[in-house]
């Protein structure tokens, strides 16, 4: 499972600049909450990736599936 970085200030500077509408630490924390917990996924984002029948997280960072094997 891909865990988003906990602390907004630990993100790489170029990555931080590329985030677009997410610009403050508060927004990043809310974004993590909406994508990585059951309540956030079911009420705000409404799109979950599943392992079997269990929703594990909502897709947020997407890389090339062929190279990373992840979402």
């Amino acid at each position: 499972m891909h865990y988003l970085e906990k602390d907004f200030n630990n993100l790489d500077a170029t990555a931080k600049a590329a985030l677009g509408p997410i610009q403050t630490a508060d927004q990043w924390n809310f974004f993590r909450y909406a994508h990585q917990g059951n309540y956030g996924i079911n009420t705000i984002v409404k799109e979950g990736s599943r392992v079997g029948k269990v929703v594990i997280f909502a897709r947020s960072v997407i890389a090339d599936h062929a190279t990373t094997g992840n979402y």
Partner: protein
Amino acid sequence: MKKSICLLTTLLVLFAFAAPGLAADTAKISAASYKAGDTVTIEGTIAPGQDLYIAIAQQKMFAPNDTDGVHETKRLKKDAKKANFTLDTKIPPLYYMLTNNPDAFGKVKDKKFGGPSVLL
């Protein structure tokens, strides 16, 4: 999980395209607004060897203050303290970061979902 048609047609896309050292927005996107199921095409160039970061997000943002559901207001108020966000923090509900460097945003760790706690 129903979404009304009017919500889908107001779904717009904005994107950010970053290359280190340059603020070059030379990317083009295929249409100004999309409905669910449409294909989004983004064309552009970046310098060789640079990392690609494309953020695709809905333009309409959501903050916990925007809802007046009884359960949601109580729950979001409680969770805001624990998860460190305020009730007027806005995020776009649909947001995807397409990148070749997902490690810049987090790590992949193994997590067990169900199954036996000890494999005998």
